[in-house]
């Protein structure tokens, strides 16, 4: 019985959302929540209160007690006003969020919401939630004329790309008698890179890369200077040149120079897909943190040119996330 009721609720929620999406289309962010897209219903507590109030009013009328009637009507009016307050708590709020986020499987990904309150009212008890296997929710209150950042942490179980087509923003403020909510129809994507695992050595270390490194590992030859570009580790800066008043430059060694490290899918032949991706992920992280060498990634059907830095790293990790798994 309870389960059927829940199913019914979920189905009606879906239908309402679909209708709402048809009506408003995809939303462009930041979205200011207008009155037309706010839904409000009494909570279970509110329904119980309504039943009690009805009983109270009938009893007061029956006892012909103006005193009790005054109390009952006061409570009823309080509930009506609370309904308006609940509705107003969302109306005019503007919501923004980063549409894409990254994570490693098994950890949380975070969507950063920006709740902006232009009115002179405090907006309390706002809850932002994403449906899913594990529904995620986060709460905040926004003081008048200010913004509030809200980090919604979504647990990610598996590698892959996870998408949501809507965000629910809701509130039960002030008394928990009503629940007002709205859907923000925007597509949120979480790129879940594989869990960094595996202890195979880097292809270069294993001697199977494009770079002829083996013998020079550890005793690099100074090969000259090249102009500075952002993203170079500080220890490779030619500080002396800079001190003499020259342009910033980077010392180049034969083994670290322009020869990129290629992280290749094919290098891990025979390993199970997820483990392969995990290993590639570990290599990317290692390359990013240890050396100054650019690295590239070759996956089936995709090749990412060598590079370095956070943007490059994320590009690589997303490529891992988007790899099809076992069909």
């Amino acid at each position, binding site marked *: 019985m309870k389960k059927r009721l829940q199913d019914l609720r979920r189905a009606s929620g879906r239908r309402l959302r679909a209708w709402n999406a048809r009506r408003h289309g995809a939303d462009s962010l930041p979205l200011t929540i207008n009155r037309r897209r706010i839904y409000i219903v009494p909570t279970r507590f509110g329904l119980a*209160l309504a039943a009690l109030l009805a009983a109270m009013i009938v009893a007061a009328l*029956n006892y012909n007690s*103006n005193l009790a009637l005054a109390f009952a009507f006061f*409570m009823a009016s*309080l509930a009506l006003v609370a309904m308006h307050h609940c509705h107003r708590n969302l109306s005019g709020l503007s919501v923004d969020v980063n549409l894409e986020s990254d994570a490693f499987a098994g950890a949380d990904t975070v969507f950063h919401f920006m709740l902006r309150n232009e009115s*002179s*009212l405090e907006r309390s008890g706002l809850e932002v939630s994403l449906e899913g296997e594990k529904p995620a929710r986060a709460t905040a209150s926004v003081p008048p004329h200010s913004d509030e950042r809200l980090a919604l942490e979504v647990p990610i179980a598996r590698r892959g790309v996870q998408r949501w087509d809507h965000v629910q923003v809701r509130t039960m403020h*002030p008394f928990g008698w009503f629940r007002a909510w709205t859907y923000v129809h925007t597509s949120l994507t979480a790129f879940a890179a594989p869990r960094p695992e595996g202890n195979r050595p880097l292809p270069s270390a294993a001697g199977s890369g494009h770079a002829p490194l083996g013998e020079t590992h550890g005793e690099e030859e100074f090969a000259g200077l090249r102009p500075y570009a952002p993203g170079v580790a500080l220890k490779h800066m030619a500080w002396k040149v800079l001190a003499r008043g020259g342009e910033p430059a980077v010392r180049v060694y034969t083994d670290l120079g322009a020869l990129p490290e290629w992280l290749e899918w094919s290098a891990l032949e025979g390993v199970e897909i997820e483990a392969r991706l995990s290993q590639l992920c570990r290599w990317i992280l290692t390359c990013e943190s240890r050396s100054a060498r650019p690295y590239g990634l070759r996956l089936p059907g995709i090749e990412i040119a060598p590079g370095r830095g956070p943007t490059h790293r994320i590009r690589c990790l997303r490529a891992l996330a988007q790899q099809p798994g076992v069909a």
Partner: protein
Amino acid sequence: MGACLGLAIAAHVAALPPWLTALVAASIAMRLFLAARGRAAPGRPVKLGIAAASIAILFLQLRTFNGLSAGTALLSLVAGLKFLETHTRRDLYAVALIIYFLCLSALLRSDSFWLLLYLLGVAWLSAAALLRLALWTPLHGWPLDLRYVGRISAQALPVAAVLWLFFPRFDAPLWQLPSERGNAQTGLSDTMSPGDIVDLALSDEIAFRVRFTGPLPPADERYWRGPVLHDTDGHSWRNVGPPAGSARTLIAEGPAYNYTLSLEPHAFNWLFALDWPDKWSVPDGRLNADDTLVQSEPVSRPLDVSAQSHTHVATQEPLSATARRRDTQLPSNRNPRAIALSAELRRSHPDDLELAQTVLELFHREEFFYTLSPPPLGENSVDDFLFDTRRGFCGHYASAFATLMRAAGIPARIVTGYHGGTYNPYAGYWIVRQSNAHAWDEIWIAGRGWVRVDPTAAIAPARVEAGLDSTLAAEPLGLGIRARVPWITDLRLRLDALGQLWRQRFLNFNQVAQLSLIERLGIAEPDAQKIVLVMAAGLMLAFAWLVWQLRREERAEPRDPAVVAYRRLCRRLAAIGLARRPHEGAEGYAARVGQARPDLAAAVAALCASYSRLRYAQPSPEHGADLDALVARTRAFRPRRRAPDSGQAGASEP
């Protein structure tokens, strides 16, 4: 929440068994204590045990769970025990609902303005508790939350007022109310022994209030008629029920007096109209055969009666034989000396009226005293009073007089009721207290009907040993002091006037009042349907006001003029397509605007810098002047949509 529950139950304390109050208090205290210590509520068997035991005791004590007081007791108990096991928000929600119900049931049997205020306070407090509960983490302290709830309540008031004023009332209850007798109520009863009324005479409680419209009857004609006592055992008198049949036709003599009685509840159905009532407003009111105005049900709630009376009446109808027999009956073995005296007087005075007059003269001439502390009387109480003690008050005189008359064969009966009253000059009505309770006689005179004789009035004023006020003054505490200090009396009268206003305007507000209210609003021929229409219109108005109020709150500008000025600047820049992005601070925004429109760069940078300084820097002595300058300059700042010469606009594109 616990405090709210405690306060709600406190409203019932008087009506609840004391052990129950203690138990509930103990369980709330225990829960709060455990919560403060961070420990969980007691285990399930403990709680179930306590619950079962206390419900059993409650049932044994009350013998029922039906009815308002038993229900309330049970609910209080359940609420207290429920509180013992609150874990989740849902449990507290249940407690909140119980609190509301307790508030209502306390109000159902009360008329007190203060109780309403108190319980509205409880509701306010519990709403604030709910507010804190609905937030995941409370933001503010209690004072701010209470203020917020206060604002919501203020917004709710107009709607509540419209509902209360115009919601259709029931003419008759849907179901019969369980009558709650047994609450000892002071007031006249249907038996009287000579010493009885003294208890009432010392009672300060109000029996009723009366407002005369038109002329006021003279003081010695203000007799408020209650039960009539016919049957005596020689000592006490009782009303075994009025004789069968209806009232005689009374022929009014003299002027009519119109008045409105506001009766306090008492245990019987007498309405205490002024002697002798002629017309009245109570639908099921009637005159019984004793000429007393009664209704079918006891006066269990405060009741307003409008009536008209004539202080002089006569009847041509003869007294029936049964009635004559009943009203001349005396026990033969009691009071022999009184019977002998009566027989002796009868021999010299054959005329009934003359005989009555002689007895009154006797009371006046002989050493009869009026006192509220008479000596005790023996078996033949009338004999003892007439010949030995000669001290008493209205009950003694009325029963002695009636005994003497009956012994002489004149039909006589004792009427109890009230006499006199205190005028309240602040609201123009009379207060009749239990201390105004009185007993007098009526004798049957052929051709005139029942004639009122008040033997107590015959006592020589010099022998009124202890008047009412002096008796009260002799009391060591309370009453005496109140009666003596004039300003306290004065204050009490004013408070009483207020209370009366509350009662008339609020407690007795009914459909009739609704109709007249609507008529005053200018709607002709009001009826129930029009009341509903007016309610709908009123609700619409109230909601319009509410929405307007809510919008106004929403739009309120921030207080700091610097913020207002900065917003104005942003608005004007947005109008030319350079809206500030949400993440941009004043400096960054100015830089971007400067890049896009070099012609505006200097002005915008200056304004933004001024804004940042005013808003975030330490206040400097020039703060005020700077602020004024910022406000004036943003007002004057009106950027044009296009830069003055296109060359520069082109230059900004890389």
